[in-house]
C-alpha cells in the first residue's frame, strides 16, 4: 500500500503529534511552562516597574520645592541676609499678578506642577489691647504675602489650584492656613515666640506711609503657627492680596517660584540653544529640560528673569539618573537570569526526548520535520508560558507599585510584546543546541538503548 500522504493528513498527523506530546506527559510540560511563566513574570514585573518608576520618582522629587525662580529683570540687587531684605521699601521692581495664568498656557503647562508668587516686605507689628484701646508691644517683622490653595482661572475656563503649600510641601502649619480675602495670617515659629503670638490672637501690622500723619494698622487673626526650618520661621505669612493692600502695592508680586516636572539634563540639554541648528532647537524645545521650560515661561512673562534653581534641579537630575540606571541594571540582571533558567529548562526538555526522536527518524521522518515539530511545541509552550507569566508579572508590578508609590503602573502592551518575543527567543535558543544534536542522531543505537 504505497499511498502518498496528502498534505491534509500530514498536517493532521503533525497536530496530533504535538497534542499527544502535551497530553501524554502533562507534568513535564507543566514544569517547563512553570519555569517559563515564572521567568517571564520576573521580566514583566521588572520591566513594568522600571518603565514607570522614572515618572513616579520625578514627581516625588517635587517635594524638594520649586526648581525655577522668576524675578523682575529690572529689579535692583536684593540685599537679603537671613531672609530679611535690607533694601529701602520702594526700591526694586515688581511683576504684574494678572500675567500669572499665562504660565499654564505654555507648551509644557502639564509639567508645571505648582507655582506661587511671593511679595515680601518689612512691617511694624503691634498688638491691640482692647482694654486700654492702645497698641502695645511694637516690633518689626517680615511680612510674606503668597497664595495658599489659590484657584487660578485659566483661559480654557478651568481652575488650577496652586500655592506655596503645593510648591513647598515641607512647610507645616500647626492650626490651619489663612483663607484668601480674609484678614488672617500664619506666623513662623520663631516670630510667634518673639512676638508672643498664639493661634486665635490678633496681630496688627503696618507699612509706614510717610505721606500720612496717622498710621493705619491692619489687624490680622493668627490661624496657625508655621514651621519651615528656613528663614520663614521668623516671618508672618498672609495672603498675597492682604500684603498688597498693607504695602499699598496693588496687583504685583516680586518673586515667583515654579515647580516643574523635568527630564534630567544630559549633554544635549546643557547646550546653549543659541548655538544649535534649527532642527536641534526644535528637539530641545520639545524635551522637558528645565532650561527649555524656563525659556518657554520667559516667553509668556515679559520683563522677567527666569532662573533655574541649580541646587534643586542638579541634585534631582543626578539622583534620578542614578536611580533609573540602577533599576535598569537590576531589570537587566533579572532578564538575564530568567532567560538562562528558561533556556536551560527548554534545553532539558529536548534532551530527554532522545528515544522519541530516534523512533520518529526510524519511521522515516527527516531532520527538518523533527526540528519543526519540536520548535512548534516549544513555541506553543513559550506563548502559553509567556502569557501566564505576563499576567503574573502585572499583578506583581501592581503590588510593588501600590506598596511603594500608592499608584499601580498601567499594564503596557509594549511589555507584553517584549515578553512574548523574549519567551519565544529564549526557548528556541535554549532548545536549538540540543535540537541540532538530535538531528544528527542515528536512530538505531538510540532504539537499542545505547
Amino acid at each position, binding site marked *: 500500500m504505497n499511498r502518498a500522504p496528502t498534505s491534509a493528513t500530514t498536517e493532521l498527523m503533525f497536530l496530533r503529534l504535538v497534542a499527544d506530546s502535551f497530553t501524554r*506527559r502533562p507534568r*513535564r510540560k507543566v514544569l517547563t511552562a*512553570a*519555569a517559563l511563566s*515564572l*521567568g517571564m*513574570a*520576573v521580566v514583566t514585573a521588572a520591566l513594568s*516597574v522600571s518603565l514607570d*518608576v522614572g515618572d*513616579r*520618582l520625578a514627581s*516625588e522629587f517635587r*517635594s*524638594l520645592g520649586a526648581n*525655577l525662580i522668576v524675578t523682575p529683570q529690572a529689579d535692583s*540687587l536684593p*540685599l*537679603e*541676609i*537671613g531672609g*530679611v531684605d*535690607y533694601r529701602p521699601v520702594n526700591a526694586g521692581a515688581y511683576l504684574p499678578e494678572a500675567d500669572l495664568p499665562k504660565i499654564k498656557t505654555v507648551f509644557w503647562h502639564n509639567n508645571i506642577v505648582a507655582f506661587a508668587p511671593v511679595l515680601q516686605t518689612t512691617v511694624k507689628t503691634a498688638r491691640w489691647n482692647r482694654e486700654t484701646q492702645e497698641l502695645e508691644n511694637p516690633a*518689626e517683622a517680615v511680612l510674606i504675602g503668597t497664595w495658599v490653595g489659590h484657584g487660578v482661572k485659566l483661559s480654557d475656563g478651568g481652575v488650577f489650584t496652586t500655592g506655596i503649600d503645593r510648591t513647598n*510641601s515641607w512647610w507645616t502649619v500647626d492650626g490651619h492656613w489663612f483663607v484668601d480675602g480674609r484678614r488672617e495670617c500664619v506666623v513662623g515659629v520663631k516670630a510667634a515666640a*518673639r512676638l508672643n503670638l498664639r493661634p486665635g490672637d490678633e496681630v496688627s501690622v503696618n507699612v509706614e506711609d510717610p505721606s500720612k500723619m496717622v498710621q493705619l494698622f491692619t489687624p490680622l487673626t493668627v490661624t496657625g503657627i508655621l514651621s519651615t*526650618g528656613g528663614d520663614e520661621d*521668623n516671618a508672618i505669612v498672609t495672603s498675597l492680596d492682604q500684603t498688597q493692600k498693607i504695602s499699598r502695592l496693588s496687583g504685583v508680586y516680586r518673586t515667583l517660584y515654579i515647580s516643574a516636572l523635568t527630564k534630567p539634563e544630559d549633554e544635549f540639554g546643557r547646550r546653549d540653544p543659541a548655538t544649535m541648528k534649527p532642527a536641534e532647537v526644535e528637539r530641545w524645545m520639545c524635551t522637558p529640560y528645565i532650561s527649555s521650560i524656563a525659556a518657554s515661561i520667559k516667553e509668556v512673562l515679559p520683563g522677567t528673569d527666569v532662573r*533655574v*534653581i*541649580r*541646587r*534643586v*534641579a*542638579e*541634585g534631582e537630575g*543626578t*539622583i534620578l539618573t*542614578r536611580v533609573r*540606571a540602577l*533599576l535598569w541594571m*537590576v*531589570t537587566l*540582571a533579572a532578564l*538575564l*537570569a*530568567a532567560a*538562562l*533558567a*528558561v533556556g*536551560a*529548562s527548554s*534545553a*532539558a526538555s529536548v*534532551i*530527554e526526548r532522545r528515544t522519541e526522536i530516534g523512533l520518529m527518524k526510524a519511521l522515516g521522518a527527516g531532520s527538518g520535520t523533527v526540528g519543526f515539530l519540536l520548535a512548534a511545541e516549544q513555541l506553543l509552550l513559550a506563548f502559553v508560558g509567556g502569557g501566564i507569566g505576563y499576567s503574573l508579572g502585572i499583578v*506583581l508590578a501592581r503590588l*510593588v507599585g501600590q506598596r*511603594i508609590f500608592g499608584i499601580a503602573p498601567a499594564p503596557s502592551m509594549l511589555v507584553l510584546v517584549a515578553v512574548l518575543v523574549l519567551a519565544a527567543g529564549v526557548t528556541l535558543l535554549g532548545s536549538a543546541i*540540543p535540537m541540532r544534536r538530535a538531528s544528527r542522531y542515528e536512530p538505531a543505537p538510540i532504539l537499542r538503548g545505547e
Partner: protein
Amino acid sequence: MGAPGAQNRQMFWRIVRRLLTANRGRLFVILLALGAGAAVTSALLNLQVDAKRRITTEFRAFGPNVLVLPKNTSLSDSGTLPETIAHSVPANLPSGRVVVTSHLYFVAAVSAPESGKSIAAVVAGTNPVIFVKASLLPAPPRADTPTALPPSTRRECVVGAKVARLLNAQQDAQLALTIGDRRETCQIAGFLQIGGPEDDRVQIGLRAAQRLADLPGRISSLELIVPGKPSEIQTYITELQHELPDADVRPIRQFTDAQTKIYGRISGILNFTIGTVLVLTALCVMAAMTNVAMERRNDVGLMKAIGGATRRVLRLFLAEAALLGLAGGVMGAAAGIFLSVWLGKQVFGVAAQPRLIVYPVAVALTMIVAILSAYPLRRLAGVRPASVFRGEA
C-alpha cells in the same frame, strides 16, 4: 570483611561521579541554570548593600543640609558666632565626612573701578572659598571637591551673576569693597548663577571679610553637608545641638524632608525588586532543575532492581544535587563578583565594593535551591522497577 563501610562509601561517590558525568549536555544545562541564579543573587545582594550607601552620598548633590546659627537672633541684629565653633563640629561619621563651611554675611559698597559703577551688595565671607568658573556652570559647586584658595596669596572673589551684570564686571577685573573707611580689593575669579541668593552676592575669603566688617574671629553661620541616612542625620543634629548649646542647629528641612521621602521610596523599590527577582529566580532555577530530575526514573528503577534501598537511592540523588548546587553556586558567585563590579561601574561610576559575606550566602542559597529542586525525586521512591523496565510510564 574489614571495610564494607569504606567500600560502600567508595561505591557511593563513584555512582555520584557517574551520575554527574554520564550526560555532559545535561550537566552543562543544570550548571547554567544554577550558575545564572547564583550570579544574579550575589550581584543583586551586593548591589543592594552598596547602592543604598551610594544613594545617600548622592544626596550631597543638594549641598548643605544642616545650618548652625546664632541663637535668639532678633530681626535687625543677626548676631554672630565665634569662628572656633567650626572646630567643635565632629567631622568624621561612619557614613562619610561632614563638609563644613563658615560664612559671614554683611552689606558693603561694591565698586568696579573699570566700569566706574558702584552698588550696595551682600558680601559673603566664606571659608573655604569654593571657586566656580562661569564656564563650568551649570555644574553645581560640588561640595566634595572644594578648591580652597591658599589664604593671603591672591585675593579672589566669586561674583553672583546679577551683581556682575549690574556692575558690568568682567572676568579677572578688580573689585573694591568698602564699609566706612575700611576697604578691601579682590580679583574676580568667576561668576555664579545657580538660582539662589548666591546670585546676588559677592563671595570673598573669610579673613578679608572679617577685616572688612571689623568682626575678627566671628562668623554668621556654619553650613554643613552631613552624609548618611535620614535617621543618621537627625541623630547628628541632636548630638550637635547638645554639644553647641549657644547655637541653633537646624536641618534645612526643604532638603532633609525630601531626602527622607525620596530615600524611603528608593530603598523600597530596591528591596522589592531585588526581593522579587531573587525569589522568582530561585523558582525558575527550581523548575528547570526539577525537569531534569524527573528523567531519572530509569536510573532509579535500575538501582532498585539490583537491590538499592530507597533511602540510599534518595541520598545518592540529594548528594548529587548538593554537589551541583555547590559547583553552580561557586561558579555563579564568581561571575556575580564581576557582574556586581560592572553594575556598580555602570550606575555609580565607581566599582561596587565586593562584600565577602554575600558570596557564601549566595552559594548556600544556591545549594538549598538545588536540594529543594531534587525534592520531587521523593516520588521516585514509589517507582516499581518492573514497570519501568517494561517501558510503562
